[in-house]
Each structure stands twice: as C-alpha cells, then as structure tokens.
C-alpha cells in the first residue's frame, strides 16, 4: 500500500517541475490528436522507448553509479523471446513479454553475480564484453535465425491485434509505449524512494559506508541490475512487435548500449527526469539533424559530429548532465 502511495507521491519535487512534467505529459497524451507527420510520430515512439531504456539504465547506472554499457543484450533477449514465441507458438505479446523479462533477469543474475565484483570502468568494459559475447552466440544460433534474424510477418496477422501487438498505424504503438512510459515513471518514483533506492544511492556515495550501514552491497547491485534489465527487456519485446524484424547486428549492437547510457548521462544520471530529458534531446536531434544535415551530400556524419561534441562538452564541464545544471543553479539560488 505504502509502495503505491510512494509511487504516486511526487510532492517532494518543486512545483515548477510538476507543472512542466504535467504539461509535457498531457502534451504527449493529446499529441496524436493534432496533425502530425509520421516521422514525428516515429520519433516520439523512439523517444519514449529510449526514455524507458534510460529509466532502466538509470536505476543501476544513475542511482547506483555502475556504468553499464551492455544493455543491448537485454534488448535482444526481450525482443527474441517475444518474436520466437509469437512466430513459433503464436504466444501473445502480453504473455511473452513477462517471460522475456524473466529470461533477462535470469541471465542478469548469471552474469551480474561475477560482474559486480568489478568496479568503475573495468565493470563498464566487462558489460560490453558480455553483450558482445551474447551477440556472437545469437549470430550462429539457428533456432533464433542466427545472423539472418527473425521476422514477424506483417501479412499473417490482422491489425489491429491488441493481443499480439500488431498494428498498422503507429498511433496504437504510441499509446502502448506511452502507457509503459507512465508506469515506468511511477515505478522510478517508487524506486528512488524505496529502501533499495536509498541503499543504492548510498553505495554510489561510498561503498564502505554503505556496508557499515548493513547494506549487502553486492546483492543490492545485482538486484538493481535485474530491475534495470527487466525494464530494458520489456521495451525490447515492444521493439520486436514494433519493428517486426530483428537481427543480432541491429537489435543487439553496441551502438544501442552506448546510446542508452549516453542519453541517461546526458540528461542527468541519478535523477527521475534525467533519462527522459536526455532522450528528449538526443532522439529528435539525431532524427532531425540527420534529416536536415546528414542527407546533404558531403555532410556525411556531420550530425554525429555535433552529437559527439555535445557529449564531450557535457562530460567535461557538467558530468551530471542537464539536470545537474538545473540542480546546481537551484542550489546556488537557495544558499
């Protein structure tokens, strides 16, 4: 009961935050009612997906300070579980998604247990390594289509199919992922106030102190890693139904892992709004910059150069991201 109350309780935020968040939330809900381009719609869906990835990453990477660069493996597990189950046994999305989450969590325990003996960038690089290993396995595993991947045939199902999450119009996907998004925010709001959340923030502060306060540091990290994993896996399942075609090279690529981490860090790791702001900046930037600049001949890669520069400037001058700047200003105002 208290958990629900905590999840719904946003009262510790300044009023301004809530007004902004509320109006943006309402804008999202009514967004499809206005005339919009399909490009804007798919950018929005991407934004929501990456916000959710970022929220998941934020639990372990932001609150826990453990920079994880291997999230793509869980995107893969979620997406593959849903796709395989749908194609082979016609299992609806709403069943296969939790199963995918279960598989992801199991895998996260298997690798998380040894993984969290590492710290700092040794940990970060090890997460990349595990993700690449899993990708290599999927690339030769015939049951999941090996490198050819899997395709959810668009002609086999009759959209709109709410059970299997097969739609023709993006707007359905938009509302599904928006639902996940709001649930994700509530969950994160609960998480940051929960015992585990507090423990994790204490771990990020100082592991020895955390230990002496009775926190099983290793276990707390493994548990949180599992939560992060479940988030990512859930969106991975959605990704499978949305894109309808998955292959290791695309779904489990290192780029996705990096993008997830970069976005959360850019927005502000360790805050509720950080990953959302990060995704809100980078996803439209990526899409629209590319549309405006990248497609011009001779400007190849200019969008990514700009993107890299933003990342470099942020990391050099305000490693706590956009939200870090906001908080800094607020604190200065107060004192």
């Amino acid at each position: 009961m208290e958990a629900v109350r905590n999840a719904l309780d946003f009262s510790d935020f300044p009023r301004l935050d809530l007004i902004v968040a509320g109006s943006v939330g309402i804008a999202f809900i009514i967004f499809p009612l206005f005339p919009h381009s399909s490009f804007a719609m798919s950018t929005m869906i991407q934004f929501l997906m990456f916000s959710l990835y970022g929220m998941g990453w934020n639990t372990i990477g932001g609150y826990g300070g453990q920079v994880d660069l291997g999230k793509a493996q869980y995107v893969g597990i979620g997406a593959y579980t849903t796709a395989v189950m749908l194609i082979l046994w016609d299992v609806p999305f709403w069943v296969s998604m939790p199963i995918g989450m279960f598989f992801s969590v199991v895998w996260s325990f298997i690798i998380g247990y040894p993984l969290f003996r590492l710290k700092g960038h040794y940990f970060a690089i090890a997460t990349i390594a595990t993700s690449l290993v899993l990708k290599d396995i999927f690339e030769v595993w015939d049951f999941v289509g090996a490198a050819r991947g899997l395709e959810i045939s668009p002609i086999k199902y009759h959209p709109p199919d709410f059970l299997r999450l097969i739609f023709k119009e993006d707007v359905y996907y938009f509302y599904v992922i928006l639902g996940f998004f709001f649930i994700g925010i509530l969950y994160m709001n609960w998480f940051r106030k929960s015992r585990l959340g507090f423990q994790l923030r204490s771990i990020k502060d100082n592991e020895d102190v955390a230990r002496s306060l009775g926190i099983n540091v290793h276990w707390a990290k493994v548990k949180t890693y599992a939560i992060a994993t479940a988030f990512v896996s859930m969106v991975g399942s959605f990704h499978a139904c949305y894109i309808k075609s998955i292959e290791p090279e695309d779904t489990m690529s290192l780029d996705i892992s990096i993008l997830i981490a970069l976005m959360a860090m850019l927005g502000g790791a360790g805050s509720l709004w950080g990953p959302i702001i990060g995704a809100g900046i980078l996803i439209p930037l990526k899409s629209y910059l590319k549309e405006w600049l990248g497609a011009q001949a001779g400007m190849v890669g200019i969008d990514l150069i700009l993107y890299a520069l933003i990342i470099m400037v942020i990391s050099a001058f305000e490693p706590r991201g956009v939200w870090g700047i906001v908080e800094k200003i607020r604190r200065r105002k107060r004192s």
Partner: protein
Amino acid sequence: MKSVLRTGMVVLSVLAIIGFIVPSNALAVEEIKIGVIYPLTGGAAAAGRELRAGAELAAKIANNVMADLPMTMAQNKGVKSLGGARIKLIFKDHEGNPTLGADLAKKLILDDKVDGILGCYFSSVSKTVSAVCEQHGIPMINGSSTSPALTQRGFKWFWRTTPHDKWFTKDLFELLVGLTKGKVQGVKAVPKKEIINLASACEKTEWGSHVSGLIKEFAKEYDFKLKKSLLYAAKSADLSSEVRSLKASRADVMLFASYTSDAILMVKTLKAQKAHPKIIWGQDAGFEKPEFRSTLGDSISGILTRTVFLPKVVEIKKLAGQVNKLYKEKTGNDLGGASARAFTGLQTWVAVLEKAGSTKPADIQAAANALYIPGKELVVPWQGIKFSTSGDELGQNVLGSGLIGQYQKGKDGKIGLEIVYPFDVSSADMIFPFAGF
C-alpha cells in the same frame, strides 16, 4: 533559476511540438513521387552513391525524350499514360540500419505520400521496408537485394527485378559442372575429382550466412564435397586463422561472400599464405568493387566473381553502351553492378506506371503482375523482366540471370573482368586452374 528552467521547459515543449510541423505537400497531378531508400551514408556510402546516380539517370531518361535510346521510357516525356507526368525521386538514407529504414518508409508513405518505393540495397533493410509497404499497401520494387528470403514471404506489394543469391550460387555450380563437361570456353573438360573439394568462407551477417547455407545446399545437390564451411566476423582485424583453416581443408575451390575490406584482406592473406586453390570465387560485393581491383592489382588475375553487370556487357549490348556513356558523363565512372541494377529498378517502375496508367496502388499492383519488359530494352544482360505471380516466390523476376566474371589482364595491360558464364556470352577464355599468386 526560473529563467533557466523556463528555457528547459521551452526546449522540451519545442521538442514535443516539432512533431506538429507537418510537411504535407499537396499531391501534384503532373508528378509521380517515388521514394528511394539507399545507404547514402555509413559503411556502404560508396555503393549508395552509385545506386543514387543509377536511379537518377533512369529518372532523367524517363522525364526526357531521348529518341536514340531503344527503350520505351526514353521515347516519351514523362509517363505517357499519365499525361506525361514526371517522375520525382525522393531519396532517403537508411545508413544500413533496418529500424531506421522502416521509419523512413513510413515517412515516405505517410508524410511524403509517395506512389511507390524503390530500394534498399541491403537485404536486411529491404526486409523491414517491404514489411511497412506491405502493411500500407504501397508497391515496392527492389532492384538490388539478393537475399532469397525476400520474395518467399508471400508479399503482394513487393517485386524484385534482380536475380537472388540462390540463382547466383546455382550459376556457380553450373559453371563447375560445365568445367567437368568441357563447356567452358578455352578449357578442356576437367575430371570432377580435381575440383570436387570445396571450402567456403562467408561473413557472418545476414547476407553471408545465407550464402553459406546456399553453398551447403547446392554442394549436396550437385554432389560436391564441402570440406569446410566457415563464417567469420565481418570487418575482421585478421583473417590468417580463417585462411589457414581453408588451406588445411585442401579444397580445390574456395568460395567467398565478403564485403570490401574483408575481401581485400582475405585475398591478401591468401596470397601471404601462398594458398593455391584451383578456383577462387567471390559472391559479388567486395570482389566486384573498384577498390578491390586497384588495391590488389595484378595478383587477382584469375579470380572469379559473380555479378549482374560487367563493363564487358557494354561491348555486347548496344543499349548498355549508350547508357554507360550517359552515366559516365554524369559521374565519371562506368556503370557497375549496383548502378545498373538501380537503373533497371527505376526503369521497371516507369514501365509499371506506364502500364497501369494510374497511381492507385491496386492498378499498380495489377500492372506489375502483368508486366513484361523484353531483354533488349534493359542494360543488364537479362532475358527481360517478368514477375512470378504464383508459387513460393511471389514477385520475383523470372527472366533475370547472373554473370560470372573473371579478372584477366587485358591487352592494354589493365586488369578487368571478362565474362565466363553464361557460356554463350563468354567474352574470353577462362583461366583454369588459378595460376597462384
């Protein structure tokens, strides 16, 4: 404080509102919009440029009268049955990313309201893009993706002009069998036991692993022994262990599916390791690229590659020569496999529209299914274009065919590709066995 927050708020809302800005152009009657999705940036940007130039050239010919070109679309200004409507190409760049490809397809269909789609070179992207087209009932013509699976999905809105890997791989085995029967120009019949042992090395993404599977299949069917079949990581740092493995298999024929950098590295490593098979065959891609030739120089003499278009075709086919001239004026390069197929892809689009006389998807669908373009109107050496409308391969052009070329040193001392298969159009004697590096 407030000002900064307000700025943040403004940024967020702007990002949200960007979506509301709609580029909704009214449908102009005199224009037919074809969305073209190619890899214009990223790893395959070089191919993307060729593809784009090929498609643009075809559009130019369709939109203008070029009476001396013996092809229907050159005789009219625009599409005649649609009142001379001009073809307008809208290019999009998928960067080799299937997810992005699907997004772009939606954008083209819903925002730009294109009448049809052409693309996408990468089979993986063609897969997602064709799925979007299928859902929205928008016709898509594919000119250059060779994964067999694409036309085996029962799609009703997807047509492919190029032959696919299954045919190409079959061509190879036909060539091998031809060798044993003495059908190859300039080579006496070779006892089968001399070329019975095969080994293949394919890069392990979608395309390479497909090819690898096909080689396995056909080796069984044609009764060859596949001694070694390996998949390697694309963009590999080093291939010496792979090559050693191939060598150790004592194969007579080595088969590859590699992109450019791997193809170059593979041949370099073969050379360094002094591998000495009787036949080296590449499945297009890297083995056909100009960089492959210029980097490796004379040492590639004798290597075979499958392709759909060789500069030699120009000598056989008058039309190809004419188009090649135009293409060279435009880009400074000769037509290649990528550009010729992109050209043909768009040519097919124009023919379909001409036949349909309407831009309604259903009319286009009917026209495409009933289409026939005779081989003499094509730049590529096919018998024509006619799509299958039944069976397990829907929308596949049944009149296409592949070529197998061999790098040979010409009279001018330059290394170039000569046609060795099909046997009836071969342009030179085949070098057999491979002389070694």
